[in-house]
């Protein structure tokens, strides 16, 4: 029976091809627009480290101006002062902890023919690599001992290793960075978390770094820092004074395995701030926060307003397309009143009529869904082209999304078809037959 209805539906679709095309196009466009924006939002709000996003916490302390709160008092500052992050690092109260900042430097290759290389770097502590599950091709991160004995070690990205060593295992070799010799301890495999959750202060979708070096090198002025710096209090002259200042430019992550550990750490932070208050610092009310990865991305509004707005708009667009379909299906089914009357008179039950017309709606829905998928693909290509780097890698369709697209089209078209079908089933056969 099913295949018979399918054939009937096909005949009906082809007979009114103009109308069918209009409906398929409308559904296709609606689904295409909705899927494009849903995909962008879905990828923007993706969990970049699902295996341990609940155990990694970003630390915020309110060290800001007592007269003029940071972010209008809504959130504590988004970074820490060097003083605080160094103190927290020294305390070693968490299972793992990492202090970091952005850095940059110039590598002078041994080969005099090669041009010097400017690299974007991250200055971080040893725990960075284990905390964030950084994948390695060669070697590994450096150890806590290396941090303590202030060794000159470096971890290269795959790309940097390709440039400097032609992709060979470079562990143990040396590079000249900012005039100093650094020993390579590891090479990171291709690693680009989206969003780049571990540092979103200069953009949530920035590329990952070319090199990683120990954080202490910044304080020793062996490498230059970059990234955002925010100050509320004047600093003295020179770099030492800057390090001791209330300027915020470091980020601090901790790994805590249980809820209890989190409670304990928060208590430790509160005690730390109380202690610092005695030195005249932290004059604002205590507002220390620990946010896990997803909470942190949420607080920092990683999903762009534009993307959310577009998604809202595109769903309204889909509704317009569906209203359109309801209207057209209604017109189409009611146009078949004489035929329906005749079939009812010949013994067709309401149930059979109902399933026949629902199948016809579903066929249109599937066609619309396929068209929508195609349009979503084109739409994402367009979004990628228009937005450039910002959306790079954020615009791709996976199987989940493809299934969602066709499913959404199917369900919404069946819903759209319900009312017209119900009307069609309730046609009075006698009246129709009389007028023929």
């Amino acid at each position, binding site marked *: 029976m099913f295949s018979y209805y399918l054939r009937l539906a096909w005949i009906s679709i082809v007979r009114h091809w*103009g*109308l069918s095309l*209009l409906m398929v*196009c*409308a559904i296709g*466009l609606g689904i295409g*627009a909705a899927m494009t924006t849903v995909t962008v939002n879905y990828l923007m709000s993706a969990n970049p480290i699902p295996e341990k996003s609940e155990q990694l916490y970003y630390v915020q302390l309110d060290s800001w101006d007592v*007269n003029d709160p940071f972010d209008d008092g809504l959130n504590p500052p988004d970074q820490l002062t060097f003083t605080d992050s160094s103190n927290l690092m020294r305390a070693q109260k968490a299972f793992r902890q990492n202090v970091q900042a952005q850095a940059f430097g*110039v590598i*002078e290759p041994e080969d005099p023919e090669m*041009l*010097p290389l*400017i690299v974007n770097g991250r200055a971080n502590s040893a725990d960075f690599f284990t905390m964030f599950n950084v994948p390695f091709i060669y070697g590994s991160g450096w150890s806590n001992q290396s941090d303590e004995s202030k060794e000159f070690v470096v971890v290269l990205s795959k790309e940097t290793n390709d440039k400097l060593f032609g992709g060979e295992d470079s562990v143990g070799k040396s590079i000249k960075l*900012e*005039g100093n010799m650094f020993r390579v301890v590891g090479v990171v495999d291709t690693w680009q978390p989206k969003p780049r959750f571990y540092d979103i202060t200069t953009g949530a979708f920035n590329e990952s770094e070319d090199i990683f070096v120990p954080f202490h090198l910044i304080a020793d002025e062996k490498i*230059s820092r970059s990234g955002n710096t925010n100050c509320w*209090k*004047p*600093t*003295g*002259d*020179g*770099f030492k*004074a*800057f390090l001791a200042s209330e300027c915020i430019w470091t980020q601090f992550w901790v790994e805590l395995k249980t809820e209890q550990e989190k409670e304990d750490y928060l208590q430790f932070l509160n005690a730390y701030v109380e202690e610092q208050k005695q030195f005249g610092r932290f004059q604002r009310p205590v507002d220390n926060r620990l946010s896990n990865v997803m909470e942190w991305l949420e607080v920092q509004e990683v999903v*762009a*307003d*534009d993307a*959310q*707005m*577009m998604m809202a*708009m*595109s769903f*309204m*667009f889909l*509704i*317009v*397309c569906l*209203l*359109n379909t*309801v*209207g*057209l299906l*209604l*017109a*189409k089914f*009611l*146009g078949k009143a004489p035929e329906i009357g005749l079939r009812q008179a010949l013994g067709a039950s309401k149930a059979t009529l109902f399933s026949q017309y629902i199948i016809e709606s579903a066929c249109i829905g599937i066609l619309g869904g396929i068209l929508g998928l195609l349009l979503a693909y084109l739409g994402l290509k*367009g*979004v990628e082209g*228009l*937005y*450039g780097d*910002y959306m790079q890698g954020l615009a791709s369709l996976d199987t989940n999304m493809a299934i969602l697209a066709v499913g959404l089209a199917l369900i919404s078209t069946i819903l759209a078809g319900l*009312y017209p079908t119900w*009307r069609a089933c309730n046609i009075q056969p006698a009246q129709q037959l009389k007028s023929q």
Partner: protein
Amino acid sequence: MLETGLILRALARNKIGALLIALQIALTMTIMVNAIFMIQDRQQQMQRDSGLDEANTFYLTNTVFGQDYNIQAHLQTDLHMIRNTPGVIDAIQINAVPLSSSGWSMALQHEPGEDKDAVGSAIYMVDEHAINSMGLELIAGINFTQEDIELRKDGQSTWPAKTIITKAFAENLYPDDWQSAVGKTVYISQTQPMQIIGIVKALQAPWNGWNGVERSMLVPFHRESKGSYYFIRTEEGRRDALMPIIEKALAESDKERIIRRVTTVEDTRKRSYRQHNATNKTLTTVVITLTLITGFGIVGLAIFSINRRTKQIGTRRALGATKRQIMSYFMMENFIISAIGNVIGCIGAVGLNMWLVSTFNLSPISFELITFGVVALFIVGQLAVLYPARKAAMIAPATATRTI
């Protein structure tokens, strides 16, 4: 107006069909008006004057890596070389570039002290060639002189005694009379006095999303820093030819530094507003397809309703209705449906706008825009129904007699 009553009674018999079109029009209106509003908002932002001579300027980064490098001496020779290149109008060293999204900001206050109100501003560290190099317009006061320029070491916390600010910044500091700002003393870094010696018409901060983007100040500093920008202005039409020449000359003059990112200000603007541009294009596509879908939906439904009423139309024609009357019947019917849709649409548009205002900090929609939306949708509706209505008018009166 006998027709109107007739149409309303006919519509009442097919409420759902009419309501569907009305709802569709309402939603289209809601989306269209808000999308156009968002497009206009972005366009206004993009049209703000950066203050620069954008067509004839470019910049590059100069990163020093050599040890024991005499930055100050090299700065002088570099600037001398660039300024004397034929075709170059002027050049400066600068710490940040407008629209580039990275830079420095500091706050200025009227009185010295820790708990005084302060206004944030972008900082551009430049010398007396800045106004000429950037193509700024000095509208009050005077420029720096060579004696004003101080050398700034990295990490230095003291500031020079003079500054030039933008008109927008002057208006913010002295709301009653911005011109009175010239000669006034303001305080930077809470306690250090600075005298405003000049005002430029416009110069944007590096961050286009900042609400203080029009507030900038020029500070007479040469920086002794390992990384800086050179900002260069050329004669009309010679920029593209000079870019590689200057890059090569700088790179070859000295091997202990890297010259990178030779970029025009025009490209920087494009990059800076890329997201705005992209969003606008997407929204425009949405508005156009939406209108088309609604239009075609009206066409489809009108054709069907006319097909269903062929006999009635024939009868009316046989009873003496002119073609014109038949056409105007359907046009009027569409007009009434559009009116209902537009009323709901206005409410929807304002509602969506209120949500956008509260969620995304947009400003409220203008009345003109809603009027535009209403008119536009009436026109779309009438155009869409034109073809089916003509078809209806062509129905021969004989159809009435033929099938009965």
